[in-house]
């Protein structure tokens, strides 16, 4: 037995609805976030991530309400990101019921934010999200929903984020986002080989072989969004297929009774 590879269901949310686009644009409606989060957890998702891609200050109270409703219906960890600019923003997410907070653009503007988040929340609750696109012989980080070039090398930024206190990295390939053409194995592999914290691969999942390949490349977890929302993959079947390929995953199973658990605990 060893640590399972995780399947994370991701809900990109704006104005209280789940949306999904391709390469960060062309958004279409994909449903109610609280309902979808609970459904994916019941289907066997190991974790739920909610990213507020609108992330306006005006929408913040609605987002906190959404986090609290989603958390109340979940029995697996919940990560939330989008528009985190300060330690207080992040603490408010945790107070509302999130277990981890993802930070992206604000950390690129002021990398010391990562250390302050880790001091206040603990590294285990700090996820640094990195959106990167390939160019030349490497991958380069973009900020503000992938609209702004930062000039930062993705692997170097990953190293710095971990050094400053990130407990996990959420690595999104801008090139593959929503394309279902497979994860960027080069990007995820290079970062996973460079750091000693879990890498969550994002962008490009199309089928079970894609997920198995990114685990093989070194990712600890695979994030899926549109393939789940549009019914292309179902988590239970995906996990069964991964298990058949020899990947160690947590297989969905009906819960034991309290009597059984008491007996297990002898």
């Amino acid at each position: 037995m060893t640590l399972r590879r995780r399947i994370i269901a991701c809900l990109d949310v704006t104005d209280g609805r789940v949306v999904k686009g391709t390469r960060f644009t062309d958004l279409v409606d994909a449903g109610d976030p609280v309902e979808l989060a609970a459904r994916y957890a019941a289907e066997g998702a190991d974790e739920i991530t909610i990213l507020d891609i609108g992330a306006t200050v005006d929408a913040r109270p609605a987002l906190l309400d959404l986090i609290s409703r989603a958390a109340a219906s979940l029995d697996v960890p919940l990560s939330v990101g989008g528009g985190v600019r300060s330690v207080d923003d992040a603490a408010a997410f945790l107070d509302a019921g999130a277990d981890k907070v993802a930070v992206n653009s604000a950390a690129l503007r002021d990398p010391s934010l990562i250390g302050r988040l880790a001091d206040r929340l603990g590294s285990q609750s700090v996820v640094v999200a990195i959106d990167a696109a390939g160019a030349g012989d490497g991958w380069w980080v973009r900020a503000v929903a992938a609209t702004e070039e930062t000039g930062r090398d993705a692997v170097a930024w990953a190293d710095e984020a971990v050094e400053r206190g990130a407990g996990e990295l959420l690595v999104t390939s801008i090139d593959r986002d929503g394309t279902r053409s497979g994860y960027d194995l080069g990007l995820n592999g290079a970062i996973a080989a460079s750091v000693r914290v879990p890498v969550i691969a994002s962008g490009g999942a199309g089928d079970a072989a894609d997920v198995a390949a990114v685990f093989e490349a070194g990712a600890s977890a695979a994030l899926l969004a549109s393939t789940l929302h549009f019914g292309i993959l179902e988590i239970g079947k995906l996990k069964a297929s991964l298990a058949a390929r020899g990947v160690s995953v947590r297989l969905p199973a009906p819960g034991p009774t309290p009597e059984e658990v008491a007996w297990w605990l002898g």
Partner: protein
Amino acid sequence: MIAVVDFGSGNTRSVLRALEAIGADAHLVATPDGLQDAERVVLPGVGAAPTAVAELKARGLWEPVRRWGADGRPLLGLCLGAQLLLDGSDEGDTPGLGLIGGRCRAFPSVENGGPRLVPHIGWNAVETDAAAFDAYFVHGYWLDADPAAVRGWTEVDRFRFPSLLRFGSLTGTQFHPEKSGPTGRALLAAFAAGRLDAPIEVATWS
């Protein structure tokens, strides 16, 4: 009534929510008086041991919780809450409640047989004599506990560590039952229903 000890730790509300979801009569307790009406106590916790100990002491909860456990009353420690049951922790060289023998230690480096990725984050199997089940973990330190108190083990990159403790009426989980799906909920329900109250006959360590 179940008292969830509130010393400002990050997962306190998650634990309360999970207990409420299974229909348990659970309340946050941030003062020693709150323990008076309790039948059972849950000690949650994420983050750093020194901060947790300082917060418990600042709220006057340290000694009442210790006495609760020492008197043989039902206590469930979760993650950091389980680590606090031991004699102490290498994290900041912090003293523990001393209810279960042993010490909380940092994972060894990869070169010394430790896991490649630290903290240990994610789902892993807990193996007991009777069963194996998956649970959700997030921790950088492990329970080097009195073997007589160890009921479950977990392995990461061939490093094997105790993940489930039972000692008298004390239960400690290195994992987070409140985040461990239906199995975690069943464990909380077992505790809430008093099925983990009965003292276990154990040999002492020394």
